[in-house]
């Protein structure tokens, strides 16, 4: 563990995946994935449904196990060791499609939970951090409400604040706006754009191509468990190389 944390700064990539393969039973979801995410880099992952893009980012914090290949997060190689996995998760924030806020806890308690139990912070300090991040996603006035009393957009902003409270070094977004009503997508994207501007390393599975154009350093296109194309947004949208990418782009941008 010590040799692992010692290298956590400097030029080591934030995330490094080599030769990653994963199966669900006989179904080959991820094939030979090689991906390196540098510190401060913003990456958008897109592709048709079932292409393995969510599975890919869920492997990074071990919500999914892979059968072959290696993942190194912030210099820490992923193993089956629970302590090691939890160490990695502390550095990796995640935002889910369905928010996954804890409905029995208030907004503030949602944000304080892991600070209190994982980071063992005193109550007052956890509160302060939580309010700070709730302020940043402009929802501090709802701190004492329960998730069930908030709109989808508000819940997703709370979920982002909750992840940020752990002061992660990288944020994973798994289709953060797919479950939202159209009028709420913008308030969540605004928060994400702001976060990108502040230099957060981000890996974002999304169909919001406008977001990809604005903030992404690289866009990754996946299909059938493979990375088909990997390019800066201008190249990706204007001169896609593969036929699959062209077809995909024509389908999502065509209307």
């Amino acid at each position: 563990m010590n040799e692992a944390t010692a290298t956590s700064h400097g030029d080591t990539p934030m995330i490094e995946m080599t030769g990653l393969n994963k199966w669900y039973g006989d179904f080959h979801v991820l094939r030979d994935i090689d991906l390196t995410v540098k510190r401060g880099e913003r990456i958008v992952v897109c592709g048709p449904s079932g292409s393995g893009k969510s599975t890919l980012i869920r492997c990074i914090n071990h919500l999914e196990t892979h059968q072959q290949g290696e993942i190194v997060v912030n210099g820490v190689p992923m193993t089956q060791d629970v302590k090691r996995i939890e160490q990695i998760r502390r550095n990796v924030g995640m935002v889910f499609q369905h928010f996954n806020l804890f409905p029995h806890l208030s907004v503030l308690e949602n944000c304080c939970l892991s600070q209190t139990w994982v980071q063992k912070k005193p109550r007052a300090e956890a509160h302060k951090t939580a309010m700070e991040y709730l302020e940043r996603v402009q929802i501090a006035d709802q701190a004492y409400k329960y998730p069930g009393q908030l709109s989808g957009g508000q819940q997703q902003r709370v979920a982002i604040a909750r992840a940020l409270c752990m002061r992660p070094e990288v944020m994973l977004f798994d289709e953060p706006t797919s479950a939202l009503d159209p009028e709420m997508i913008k308030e969540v994207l605004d928060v994400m754009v702001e976060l990108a501007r502040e230099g957060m390393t981000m890996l974002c599975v999304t169909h919001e191509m406008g977001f990809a154009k604005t903030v992404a350093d690289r866009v990754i296109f996946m299909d059938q468990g493979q990375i088909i194309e990997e390019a800066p947004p201008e190249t990706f949208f204007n001169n896609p190389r593969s036929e699959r990418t062209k077809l995909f782009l024509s389908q999502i941008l065509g209307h």
Partner: protein
Amino acid sequence: MAGESMRDVMIEARRPPNAHRGVVKWLQRNLFNGPINSVVSVITIGVLLWALWPFVQWALIQADWLGDSRQACSGEGACWVFISARFESIIYGFYPEAARWRVDIVFALMAGLLAWLAIPRIPGKRWAAIIAVVGFPIAAYVLLLGGHFGLMHVSTRNWGGLMLTLTVATIGIVGSLPIGIVLALGRRSNMPLVRAVSVVFIEFWRGVPLITVLFMASVMLPLFVPTEVEFDKLLRALVGIMLFWSAYMAEVIRGGLQAIPSGQDEAGKALGLGYWHRMGLIVLPQALKLVIPGIVNTFIALFKDTSLVLIIGLFDLLAIIRAGLTDSDWLGFATEGYVFAALVFWVFCFSMSRYSQYIEKRLQTGHTN
């Protein structure tokens, strides 16, 4: 940085038209709003009166309440003198009279603790919980059994009546819930051995009638353990009841665990929380809340089934009343005895039921998951 949500702009709502109030209005709207409804209402009320009136007359109007011997019974209605004459033994069983104050203290402590825990306005729940879990059992054990601090030893053979029923029910309830939680988690564990042990345990205890468990506990257990080790009969029954009901509890709780979306556990994992934190802070609070009706249902069944201990010769509330029926001074008062036993069981079970409904409402946080 986040844009204003549409929800932030509120249009003031108009109030609904005034609802009709008052008893007469209510009757009109609900029971007599039309000819068919009125006929149905009249018939229902008639049937209820016809069915219940004789019982009310027997149990209340023509009943004999005062006196201290059989002579006080007129024979027209119920003779509750039977109950009042035997009241002490119904409460304490064969507990020696000189030491009954110890039982009273335990009853008072229990009532006080329950009120402290159950009424939200009283502060210091953490202390109440600690006292209830640690202090109370020790105090109850020392007081009831005696043999320490100059208190006379009272063997569990002399325990009986309501005191025994409450002892068995309380220990059964308090023991079966945590064991049930552990078994439910075990049955959903990723570790094959833990899962297998939990499944076998649950299926074994669920597949055996409680009477069999009690017989086995009282008759068979002594065959397997050396004669020098003498287990208390009550203790054996308690262990049997606890394990039997923990299997049911486990299945109720497993139902709750399954209803919690996997996203909750994943969110906990993503925040770096370990297994016990995720279960204790995220999954179980939601799962247990969801199955409060099932848990209380199990508590109620457990409470009522404590009366089965009479088949292994323990004198619980029902058994002590039955014993009273054989008293030659009081032959022929079986109905009064059983009605009273039913009433006592009903009061306890109904209280649990109402309290669980109250708790369910209180824990409602407008859950959308």
